[in-house]
C-alpha cells in the first residue's frame, strides 16, 4: 500500500507543486508532529507517510471543496491531448484508492486517558476496582518502558526455559549418580527382593484407616493388648519373663512330653498310611463317611454357614468325579479288570464295587439344607436372606480363597486331590489348616491332639515374647561400638605414621652406606699394609696369589672389596653409633662375620672319588683346581667393564677445517671442540653399586613390558594406587569361593526375558527415600569400620 500511495503522492506533488506550496508551508508544523507520532516506521516509510498525511491534512481542511476542485482539475486536464487523457484514467484509479486511505476523524490525535475515563464514569457496568485502577493510572506519571527487542526477549525466554529444564533434570542427578557408583546393578531395577517379606515390615507398613479399624485399635491399645504381634499382652510378657527353676523344669518336662507325643503321633499316622490293606481303608473310609454325614446333619442345624460350605465342597468333588471318570472303567486297573471279568468272579465283583463307588460319588447329596437353599434361591425377593448368604459369594466359587473372605484358610488345601478326601472325611476343614490335617484322620485321640495344640500355641506365645523382648537391650548396646570406634582409629593412625618413615630410613641408610663405603675405600688405600696381616683365615693363600697377579690399576679397585671383606670391623663401630636402627641385612655386618667351623661327628672315610672318575675332562679339573687364583680380580675386571659399558659415551662431532685452518699438524681449537662435544646425562646409579661382589644386568627386560600396563588407567593418580589395586590375586587358586564370587561380580545383571522399563517419576521419589536411608546406613557402616 505504501508503494501505491507513494506513486500517487509523487504524481500529485508534481502536479500541485505550483499551486499548493503555501498550504504545505501552512501545515508543516502539523507534519512534524505526526512524524514524531509514528516513530517506529522506517525512515523512508516515514517520509512517505508524512507526505501522504500532508495531503490528508489538506483534504481534511478542504473537505468537499477539495474534492470538487480535484474533479475540476481532472476534468480540465482531460480536455487536453492524448497524454493527458491517459493520466486522467490513472487518476480515476487514484480515486478508488482513496477509499482505502480514508481515515476516521481525529485519527492523528492522541487519545488521552481522561477521555476514556470520562466515558467510564458514565457506564455503570465497569467495576469499581478497574475504575480505581484507571484513576491511579491517570495520576501516575510513569511512562511504560518500551518493550524489549525480539532477540533479548527470546534470550530471556530461553534462559527461563533452560533453568526450568535443568531443575527438572537435576532431580535425577542423585539417583543417576547412585546407579553409576553402585557396585552392581540388577535390572529390572524395581524388582522386589524374592522370598517372603519380613513380618515387621508388613505390619509397620500397614495403618488403620477405616473407622472400624481405628476403633478396634483404640480398644486394643486401651486394654494394653498387643497390636503388632497379637499373641502376648504386656502382662503376659511380664509373667512370661518371671519363671522360676521349677517352672522351667516343669515346662521342659512338658516340652519333652509334647515332643514325645508328637513323635508317637507322627509314627502312628505314618504307619497307618502305609497300610496297604484295601479292606482296612474301606472300612476306615466308610466309618469316616458315616461320621461326617452325622456331623453334617448336625451342622445343618447348628451352623448352617459351615454346612453350606461343606455342601459346596461336596458339590465340587462330585463335579470333579463326574468329569474325571476316576471310578469308572477308564483307569488302568479298571481296564485290566474288564479283561479279567469274563473269567473271574472276583474281578467282576470288584468292578461292580468300583461302579458303585462312582455312583455314590456322583450322587447329588440331598439334605435339608440343600432343599432350604433351593427354596431360598427361589424366594430371594420376598424373604430376607440369612446373614451367611450375604457374607460373600460362596457356593461354587469356594475354590478361590479370596472370594470367601477367610484368610486363615490355606489355598493350597483346596487342591483337587484333597477334595476327594474331604467328602468322606472329618469336619475339621473349617479349622486352622495346620491342625486340619491332624484332625482329619484322627478323631479318637483327642487328648493328644489337644495337648499338642496347647504346646503349639504356647510355643508361639513364647517366640512372640522373645521377639518383643529382644530389641529392648539393643538400646543400651550402641555404647559399646562407640568405644570400639574410639579405640580402633588409633591403630591405623600409628600404622600410617610408621609407614612413611620406612622409605626415609631406607634412603638414609643407603646414603649413609655409600658415604661409609667411600670412606672405607679411602682409608684402605692408605692402609694397604695391614691387609696382608689381616689375612689369617684359610683363604690367606689365595689372597697371596691375588697380590702377585695384581696390576697397578687393579690395585685401586681391589682395595675396595678386599677391606670390605676383611677390614670393615675397624670402621663399623663408628658407623654403628650414627645408625639409629638396623633394618634388613647389612653388608658390613655380614662380610665381617667369620666363617663358623662346623664339627661333624663322622669323619669322611672316603674322599671325593667322583672327580677321579671324571677322567674325561682332566683339563677342566686342572682348571678348577687352579681357578681360585685370580677369581676376585677377574670378577672385578668384569664388573668394571660392565660399568664402563653402561656409561654414556661422549660424542665428539668436531670437524677439522671447518671455520678455521686445517692441516696435518693442526688441531681444532679447544673452544670448538668443547662446542661440538655432546655429553649425555649420566644414567641412574647402578643397582649393584653398593654390592661389591655382585654384577647386576641393567638391561631392560622388554619381554615382560609387552604384558605390562603401559599407561595409568583413568581414575588413578599415581602408580602406587593402581599397582596396589591389582596386587591381590583374583583366581580360585588363591582365594576362597566366596571371595572369588565377590571379586568377579558382574557390574550389570539382567534377568533373561525381563523387560527393562525406563525409570519413571514415581521411582525417583521412592528412591529418594531409599537414598537418604541408604546413605545414612552407609555412613554408619563406615563409622563402624573405623
Amino acid at each position, binding site marked *: 500500500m505504501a508503494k501505491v500511495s507513494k506513486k500517487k503522492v509523487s504524481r500529485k506533488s508534481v502536479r500541485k507543486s505550483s499551486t499548493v506550496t503555501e498550504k504545505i508551508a501552512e501545515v508543516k508544523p502539523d507534519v512534524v508532529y505526526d512524524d514524531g507520532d509514528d516513530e517506529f516506521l522506517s525512515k523512508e516509510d516515514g517520509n512517505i507517510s508524512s507526505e501522504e498525511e500532508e495531503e490528508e491534512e489538506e483534504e481534511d481542511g478542504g473537505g468537499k471543496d477539495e474534492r470538487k476542485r480535484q474533479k475540476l482539475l481532472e476534468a480540465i486536464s482531460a480536455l487536453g491531448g492524448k497524454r493527458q487523457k491517459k493520466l486522467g484514467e490513472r487518476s480515476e484509479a487514484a480515486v478508488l484508492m482513496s477509499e482505502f486511505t480514508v481515515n476516521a476523524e481525529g485519527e492523528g490525535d492522541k487519545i488521552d486517558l481522561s477521555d476514556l475515563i470520562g466515558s467510564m464514569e458514565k457506564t455503570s457496568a465497569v467495576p469499581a476496582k478497574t475504575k480505581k485502577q484507571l484513576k491511579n493510572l491517570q495520576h501516575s506519571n510513569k511512562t511504560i518502558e518500551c518493550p524489549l527487542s525480539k532477540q533479548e526477549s527470546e534470550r530471556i525466554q530461553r534462559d527461563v526455559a533452560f533453568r526450568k529444564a535443568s531443575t527438572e533434570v537435576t532431580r535425577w542427578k542423585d539417583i543417576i549418580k547412585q546407579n553409576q557408583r553402585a557396585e552392581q546393578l540388577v535390572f529390572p531395577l524395581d524388582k522386589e527382593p524374592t522370598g517372603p517379606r519380613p513380618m515387621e515390615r508388613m505390619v509397620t507398613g500397614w495403618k488403620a484407616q477405616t473407622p472400624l479399624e481405628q476403633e478396634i485399635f483404640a480398644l486394643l491399645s486401651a486394654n494394653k493388648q498387643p497390636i503388632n504381634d497379637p499373641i502376648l499382652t504386656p502382662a503376659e510378657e511380664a509373667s512370661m519373663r518371671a519363671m522360676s527353676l521349677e517352672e522351667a523344669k516343669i515346662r521342659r518336662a512338658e516340652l519333652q512330653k509334647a515332643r514325645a507325643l508328637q513323635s508317637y503321633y507322627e509314627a502312628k499316622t505314618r504307619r497307618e498310611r502305609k497300610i496297604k490293606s484295601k479292606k482296612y481303608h474301606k472300612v476306615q473310609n466308610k466309618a469316616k463317611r458315616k461320621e461326617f454325614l452325622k456331623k453334617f446333619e448336625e451342622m445343618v442345624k447348628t451352623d448352617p454357614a459351615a454346612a453350606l460350605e461343606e455342601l459346596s465342597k461336596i458339590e465340587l468333588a462330585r463335579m470333579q468325579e463326574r468329569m474325571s471318570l476316576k471310578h469308572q472303567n477308564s483307569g488302568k486297573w479298571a481296564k485290566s479288570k474288564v479283561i479279567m471279568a469274563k473269567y473271574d468272579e472276583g474281578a467282576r465283583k470288584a468292578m461292580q464295587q468300583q461302579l458303585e463307588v462312582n455312583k455314590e460319588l456322583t450322587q447329588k447329596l440331598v439334605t435339608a439344607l440343600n432343599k432350604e437353599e433351593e427354596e431360598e434361591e427361589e424366594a430371594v425377593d420376598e424373604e430376607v436372606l440369612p446373614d451367611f448368604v450375604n457374607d460373600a459369594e460362596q457356593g461354587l466359587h469356594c475354590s478361590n480363597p479370596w472370594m470367601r473372605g477367610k484368610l486363615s484358610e490355606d489355598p493350597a488345601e483346596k487342591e483337587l486331590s484333597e477334595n476327594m478326601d474331604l467328602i468322606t472325611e472329618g469336619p475339621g476343614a473349617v479349622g486352622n489348616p495346620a491342625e486340619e490335617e491332624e484332625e482329619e484322620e484322627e478323631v479318637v485321640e483327642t487328648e493328644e491332639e489337644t495337648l499338642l495344640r496347647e504346646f503349639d500355641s504356647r510355643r508361639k506365645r513364647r517366640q512372640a515374647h522373645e521377639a518383643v523382648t529382644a530389641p529392648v537391650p539393643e538400646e543400651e*548396646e550402641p555404647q559399646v561400638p562407640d568405644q570400639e570406634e574410639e579405640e580402633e582409629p588409633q591403630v591405623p593412625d600409628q600404622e600410617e605414621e610408621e609407614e612413611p618413615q620406612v622409605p626415609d630410613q631406607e634412603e638414609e641408610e643407603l646414603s649413609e652406606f655409600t658415604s661409609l663405603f667411600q670412606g672405607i675405600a679411602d682409608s684402605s688405600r692408605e692402609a694397604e699394609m695391614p691387609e696382608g696381616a689381616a689375612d689369617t683365615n684359610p683363604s690367606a693363600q689365595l689372597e697371596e696369589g691375588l697380590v702377585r697377579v695384581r696390576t697397578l690399576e687393579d690395585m685401586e679397585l681391589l682395595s675396595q672389596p678386599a677391606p670390605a671383606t676383611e677390614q670393615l670391623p675397624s670402621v663399623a663401630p663408628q658407623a654403628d653409633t650414627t645408625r639409629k636402627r638396623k633394618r634388613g641385612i647389612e653388608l658390613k655386618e655380614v662380610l665381617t662375620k667369620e666363617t663358623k667351623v662346623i664339627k*661333624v661327628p663322622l669323619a669322611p672315610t672316603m674322599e671325593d672319588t667322583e672327580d677321579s672318575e671324571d677322567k674325561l675332562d682332566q683339563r677342566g679339573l686342572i682348571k678348577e683346581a687352579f681357578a681360585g687364583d685370580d677369581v676376585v680380580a677377574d670378577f672385578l675386571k668384569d664388573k668394571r667393564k660392565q660399568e664402563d659399558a653402561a656409561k654414556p659415551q661422549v660424542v665428539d662431532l668436531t670437524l677439522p677445517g671447518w671455520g678455521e685452518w686445517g692441516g696435518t699438524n693442526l688441531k681444532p681449537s679447544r673452544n670448538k671442540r668443547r662446542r661440538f662435544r655432546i655429553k649425555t646425562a649420566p644414567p641412574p646409579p647402578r643397582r649393584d653399586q653398593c654390592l661389591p661382589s655382585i654384577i647386576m644386568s641393567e638391561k631392560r627386560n622388554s619381554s615382560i613390558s609387552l604384558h605390562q600396563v603401559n599407561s595409568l588407567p583413568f581414575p588413578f593418580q599415581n602408580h602406587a594406587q593402581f599397582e596396589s589395586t591389582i596386587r591381590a590375586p583374583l583366581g580360585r587358586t588363591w582365594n576362597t569361593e566366596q571371595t572369588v564370587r565377590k571379586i568377579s561380580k558382574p557390574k550389570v545383571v539382567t534377568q533373561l526375558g525381563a523387560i527393562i522399563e525406563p525409570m519413571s517419576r514415581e521411582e525417583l521419589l521412592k528412591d529418594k527415600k531409599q537414598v537418604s536411608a541408604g546413605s545414612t546406613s552407609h555412613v554408619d557402616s563406615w563409622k563402624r569400620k573405623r
Partner: protein
Amino acid sequence: MAATSEAVVNPAHVETTKKPPARYWDELQDGKDDNKVGKDGEQTGETLPQKHVEKAKKRKNDEDRGDAKKFISGKPDPFPGPAHISKDRMQKFKRRDKTKKIPRQHYKLKDMMARSDEVSEMAQKQAARIDLLLPEDAGFLEGDEDEDTCTISQEDISDAVDITSASKYFDLKLSQFGPYRLDYSRTGRHLLLGGRRGHIACIDWQTKRLMCEINVMESINDVKWLHSEAMYAVAQKKWLYIYDSNGIELHCIRKFNDVLRMQFLPYHFLLATVSATSFLQYLDVSVGKEVAAINTKTGRLDVMCQNPQNAIVHLGHSNGTVTLWSPNQKEALVKMLCHQGAVRSVAVDKTGTYMVTSGMDKKLKVYDIRAFKPLKSYFLPAGASCLSLSQRGLLSAATGDIVQVYRDVWSTPVTKPYMAHRVQRTVWGMHFCPFEDVLGVGHGEGFTSMLIPGAGEPNFDGLDSNPYRSAKQRQEWEVKALLEKIHPELITLDPTELGQVDQATSQQKHQDRVQALGFDPLAKEKFIPRYKKKGRSSAGSIERRKRQVANEDLRETVQQSSEDKMKIEKERKEREKKEVLLSSKKSALDRFKK
C-alpha cells in the same frame, strides 16, 4: 525351646549359694537384668563378693561383645562376633598393604580403592580362616640332655617310629651300575633313579612298586621327572631323551646335546638344561619347542638349581661365581661372586629367600637372594659336594660319603649338624622328598632313603600336588595345569614386576618394538632413482632426481609444520577469546554485541 529353658536355668547353676527362685515381681524391681549388670557394675556392690568377681568377668565379656545379636533364648552369646583370627595367621595371607588415603581424590578412585581394600581384606580373612583346615604341624627330633641329635642313628629312629614310617628307611643295593642320581616327582610318590652306567628305574617308593627298569647302555648324567610321573627326561651321553613311565623312549632331542644337569620348572612346563658346551637351554615340554638357548660363555656347566619362587635358574661356575638366568635375556641377570674356588653346589629354598652355596674353598655360604647379600658363612672341613633344601628349610650337605642335615642355617649360627648319616660310598645325588620326612641319597652303592623328622611340608595343597591323587585326578590336574601354564616371557627376577606399570619412555618402547619385529616400522624407505635409458641415468641426473625428491620431502615437512603451527596459534587464540569471555562476563562494550 531347649535353649530358653537353659538360659533361665543357667544363672541358677552358676550361683554357689542357694537362692529363692526368682519371681517376676522381684525381677521387675532390681534384678531387671542379669545380662545388663556389666554396665552398671556399681549396683552389684551389695551382692555377694563371689558374684562380684563373676560379674567383673562378665563385664569383660560384655565389652568385647559389642553389638552381639541377642538370641531367641535371651541368653547372651558367649562367643559373639566372628571368630578371632590370630595376627600371624593374618600376616601369612597378607597380599598387600592398605592404601593410604589421599585427601582429594576422584570419587570413582575413592570408590575403587575402598572396594579393593575391602575385597583384599575379606580375601585375607577368609584365607586365614580356612587355614584352620591345615592342621598338621611339623616337629623335629629332640635329643635328651647332653645328647646330640646328630648321633642318633637311622636304625634307632626307624625302631622308634611306627611301621609305616619305619618302612621309609631303606637301602637299595645297586652296586653294579655305579653312582646314582635321583629325582622325586612333585607329589613325592615316585622316585626316579639314574645310574651312571645307564641304569634307570622308576619306583613308587612308598609301596616299593617298580614301575619300570631299563638300561640305556650309555652313560647317564642326570634324570628328571617332567610335570607328572608319566614322563621323565634323561640326560645321556650325547643327547637328551624323554621316556615314559613304562620305559618307552618317547623322544630323543638332538638339539640338546651333552646335557649335564636339568631342572624342571613346573608352572612354566619348561625343562632347563645346562651342557658341557656352556649352553643353557629351555625346552617347553607342553609343545616340544626350544624356548631359548643361551650361550653362557662360562665353560662346562654342572652346577644348577632353580629358584622355585620366580623360576630363575642359578648356575654355579668354576670361577666362584653364581649366575642367575631367565630365558628372556641373553646375559646373566645377576652375577655373584660367592667363593674363592669353584662352586660345587647351589640350592635355593622354597620361598625364594635364601640361597645356599658350597665351593671348592670348603665353605658353605648362605645368601639372601632378594638383596643379594651374604648372611652366613660356614667352614666345612671336608667341603660339601651336594646340597639340597627341604620344604621346611632343612639343609642337607654331602661331604664324601657322609650326609649331614642342618637346621636353620640362615637364622642362627650352626656349629653342628642336626642329623648325620654315613652311606657306603660317595654321595652322587641327594634330594628331599616333598611332603615326607625323607631324604633320598644316591651313592655309589645304590640308593638310601633316610628319615629326617621335620623335613617335609605336612600340609599339601590337594589342587596343586596331591600325593594321594588317583589317575583320574592326575588327568584333571594335568589339564588344569596346562591351562594355567605361565608363559616363559613372564619369568623375571621380581615376580611382582608384571603387576607394575611400565614406565618406559616412548623411545624405549619403540626400540622394544623394533627389536621384536626385526625392522623399524616407522622408518622411511630410502629413495633409489630408477634406471632410465638413453643416457638419462647419468650421474648428474640421478643426483638431480635425488635432490628433487629430497626437496619435495622437505617442502612437505615444512608445510606440515607450518600448518601445525597455524593450527596451534588458532586454537590458542580461540582459547584466549573464550577465557576473556568467561573471565569478564560483563564489559562496557557488551551492549553493542547482539
